[in-house]
């Protein structure tokens, strides 16, 4: 009897030792890799108070970068929201040849390097690209201007809305939609009254994710933007440009601004996800 309890005590001791060991390794790793560097950038930005941050974020260059970032990100999110809801409805509610293919294609953008995205868009919409001469003849400019940046941003954030909405659509089923249709509601009424309310939280979750991704896109945008200060310079490009000019204060300020946006979107999206799960 005494022997057995001794063995149990040794085992549980060993178990708690390994538990503390794992905890120490995991938290230590997260501290060194993640928490400490993030805290450091906040410290660096705020070490001389909020004055320098405010000044560097309200310079005309920074203000235009913020404006360009918002225009590009919001345009891309609007495009992807419309596409995302449409594609999710098709994938979940319809049966058509090539459905599995569409399902696979939607996920492709997340496997493509942002630099390759930029190159791909240049090769099609650039001056010497597939549609280059047509675009030029019609007096349009896509690469090295805002439309190209919107395309690049839309490319990288393409799957997010689809992948947030589709599972919820699948889960709620289509009985209610069918009932509405038999009661004489048309397609739009059915969507607005039945489908939309049940996917609202999931859609908001997807939109928040897309917006966060779009506001912070760097690689794909840097290839197609042309870095024209005041015109095609987004916040991420602004950070890079300021660092090259040894203006650490401005770079850290913009980085902290984007980090705060990222953290905010993280909190909001987490709340939306739990809400959309508990509703469905």
């Amino acid at each position: 009897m005494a022997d057995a309890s001794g063995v149990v005590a040794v085992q549980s001791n060993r178990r708690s030792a390994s538990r503390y060991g794992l905890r120490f390794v995991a938290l230590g790793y997260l501290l060194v890799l993640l928490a400490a560097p993030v805290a450091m950038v906040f410290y660096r930005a705020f070490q001389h108070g909020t004055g320098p941050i405010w000044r560097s974020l309200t310079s005309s260059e920074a203000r235009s970068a913020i404006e360009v970032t918002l225009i590009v990100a919001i345009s891309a999110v609007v495009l992807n929201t419309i596409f995302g809801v449409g594609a999710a409805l098709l994938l979940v509610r319809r049966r058509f040849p090539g459905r599995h293919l569409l399902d696979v294609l939607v996920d492709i953008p997340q496997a493509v390097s942002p630099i390759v995205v930029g190159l791909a868009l240049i090769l099609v919409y650039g001056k010497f690209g597939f549609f280059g001469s047509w675009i030029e003849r019609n007096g349009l400019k896509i690469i090295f201007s805002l439309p190209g940046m919107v395309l690049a941003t839309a490319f990288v954030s393409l799957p997010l809305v689809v992948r947030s909405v589709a599972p919820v659509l699948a889960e709620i089923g289509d009985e209610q939609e069918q009932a509405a249709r038999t009661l004489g509601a048309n397609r739009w009424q059915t969507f607005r009254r039945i489908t939309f309310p049940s996917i609202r939280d999931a859609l908001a979750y997807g939109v928040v994710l897309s917006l966060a991704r779009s506001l912070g896109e760097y690689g794909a945008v840097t290839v197609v933007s042309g870095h024209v200060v005041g015109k095609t310079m987004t916040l991420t490009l602004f950070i890079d440009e300021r660092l090259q000019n040894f203006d650490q204060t401005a770079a850290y300020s913009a980085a902290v601004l984007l980090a705060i946006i990222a953290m905010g979107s993280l909190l909001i999206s987490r709340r939306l996800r739990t809400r959309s799960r508990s509703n469905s």
Partner: protein
Amino acid sequence: MSPLPSSALAVDASVPTAARPPGVRPPAWWRARSGGSAGGTSLGLGLVTLYLSFLVLIPLGAVIWKSQSNGWSEGWHQVTSPQAWAALKLTLTISVGVALFNLVMGTVIAWVLVRDDFPGKSVVELLIDLPFALPTIVAGVVLLSLYGPRSPAHINIAYTRTAITVALLFVTLPFVVRTVQPVLIELDRDMEAAAASLGASPFLIARRIILPNLVPAMLTGTGLAFARAIGEFGSISLLSGNLPFRTEVSAVNIYNQIQSDNPVGAAAQSTVLLFIAFVVLFALDRLKRWGGRRG
């Protein structure tokens, strides 16, 4: 689109039967084109296909097409030119290492988050996702501020291969954690209790009961982390210094080739990256089905 009878019927299956007056069935060509459900499907499908084509498919096709525009041998020659080849080798080597390290660390972190309890756990839980939300260039700035030339800890890794590794570890951190965690939560603990009551040591339980259940999720997370790592640009470009043959990764090499007006070389290197990423995605899709079959 010219719907074959079979596909028209397949599309029609989604039309609620109650919406159709019994006995009156319009011919197949009419059903496919009418403003009914099938018509909506073709219109929506057309728009979705158009958007995907002009945004994703034609551009990616152009990359592959461009890489062989001077012949496949020239494309391959560009990929194997000393500088591009060095960049590719460096990228793949570090990415494999980072993915494997994530395999271990990600599983450990997921384990601690699910099975352990400590004050501040919910904060850690939130922190894990930060690398996904943080713009890559901000990730670069963040690492630079602590491990750069002005490091308060006097650890300067800037312009070394270590910097590339650390940047990749940072941006790929959540993949394994977030794929393993849900599986670990769902895992039936009765099995472990049964094994323990039969005298199995904790190590044996971990090896024989827990690990086999986690393997598909662990491999999925590792594969995703690897696919992400080979294409990473923003966080690396700030930290690595991009020295040819030393710290230049593929994405940066492609960027430099675009800047120095060598689209064929850039496209060739891009095609290799695309190919590797697609192979990984395909393998993961297979793995998902395999894992799904096993239950």
